[in-house]
C-alpha cells in the first residue's frame, strides 16, 4: 500500500429534492507513472489509483478509469442530482489491490 493515502470528500449535508449538487473529492496518492527511473537507472514500478467510482444509494453516479499520466493527488469535481435522502459512497482502487472507501450522507431538506 502506498504511504499516506487519505481520501477526502466534500458533499453538502443538505439539498432540496431534485437539486444538482457539486461534489469534490481528493485522494492523496503519489500516482507513480512507471515511466520514471531511480538514481541507479532502474524503473520505478507503476503505482497509481486506476479506478474511481461514486454511487448514490447503490446507483452509479460516476465511474472513472485513471491512467498513469494523471498527476499526484487526483482531484475530481462533478455534479449529481439528488432526488431523495441517502448516502454517497466513494471508492478508489489502487494498483496494489488496496481499496479506499469513504461515505457521505445527504438529507433532503
Amino acid at each position, binding site marked *: 500500500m502506498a504511504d*499516506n493515502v*487519505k481520501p*477526502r470528500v*466534500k458533499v453538502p449535508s443538505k439539498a432540496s429534492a431534485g437539486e444538482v449538487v457539486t461534489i*469534490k473529492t*481528493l485522494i*492523496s496518492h503519489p500516482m507513480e507513472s512507471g515511466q520514471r527511473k531511480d538514481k541507479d537507472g532502474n524503473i520505478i514500478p507503476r503505482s497509481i489509483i486506476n479506478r474511481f467510482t461514486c454511487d448514490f444509494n447503490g446507483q452509479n453516479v460516476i465511474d472513472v478509469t485513471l491512467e498513469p499520466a494523471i*498527476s*499526484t*493527488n487526483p*482531484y475530481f469535481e462533478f455534479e449529481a442530482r439528488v432526488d431523495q435522502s441517502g448516502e454517497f459512497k466513494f471508492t478508489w482502487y489502487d494498483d496494489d489491490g488496496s481499496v479506499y472507501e469513504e461515505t457521505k450522507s445527504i438529507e433532503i431538506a
Partner: protein
Amino acid sequence: MKIRTLAGSVALVALTGMATWADPAEDKLVINGEIEMITHTEKAPDYIEGLSEQYSGWHFRDADTRDMERDDFDNPGMLAVDAAKEVWNTADGTEGKSCASCHGEPESLRGVRAVMPKFNEAKGEMYTLEMYINDCRTERMGAEAWGWNDADMVNMTALISYVSRGIPMNVAIDGPAAPYWEKGKEMYYTRYGQLELSCANCHEDNYGNYIRADHLSQGQINGFPTYRLKNARLNSIHSRFKGCIRDTRAETFKEGSPEFIALEVYVASRGNGLSVEGPSVRN
C-alpha cells in the same frame, strides 16, 4: 484560429476591465468565505524604495490557480498541513516529547510566521522558522534535526503558516536585524550569473511583464511555503531563492546559508503589510 483567440482576448479584457494582459489581476482573496486576505496594498513601506504598491504573487496567477486558494479543499497544500498536524502530536526523540507537549494546539503559534525571520536574542543570530523548528527538535525533544527541504520540515512550516493566515507580515528590520537587512538588500540589487540579473531586474523593474511564458510577480514570500503546480509539492522559501539564482545561470547559495537568511529578511520585509498566505497555490 489566431483571429478567434484575439477576439476572445478582446472580449475578456472588455469584460474584466483589465488595462492590459500583463497587469496583476484585479481580484480579492477570501479563503473559505471567511478569512479576508490582504493581497494588495496601495502603498509599500517607505524603506522599500523600489515599490509603490505591493502585490501578493496570487495576483499574477491564472484565474483557475487563484480559485484553488479560495477553498481549503481545493488547495493541495492543505494535505501537507494535515500531515504536519499528525507529526505535531507524535512524540519523537529521547525526551519523549511532541510539539504538542510544549505548545498545545498549533493555533498557539498564531502570529509566529508573520514576524519570521526574527533575531534570536539567546543565540545571537538571525533565525528563520526552520531554525526555530530544528532548535525545538534538537534541544527540547532530543530528536534529529530535519533537513531544510525535508517533507516533514516544509509541512511543519506550512502548518505554522496556516494558523497565521490573514495576519499581515511584520518582520523587524531595525536593531539587531539591521545588518542582515542591509546585506539582504545589497544582494537583492546585485546582478548574479551569466545572465547578469538581480532580483530587482525581474521582481521590481518588470513585475507584471512576461519573461517568456512566465508572468513575473513581485517575488513576495508571504505565501510560502507554496504548493507549485509544476512540481506538485510544497516549496520552501530558500528552495525558491535557489531556483531564481540558478535561472540567472549562477552558482547558487545553499538552503540555510547566511546569504539566503539575509535575503529572506530583506525580501520578507518587502512584503510587510501583506497577509500571511501560506500554504499558497502557484504555478
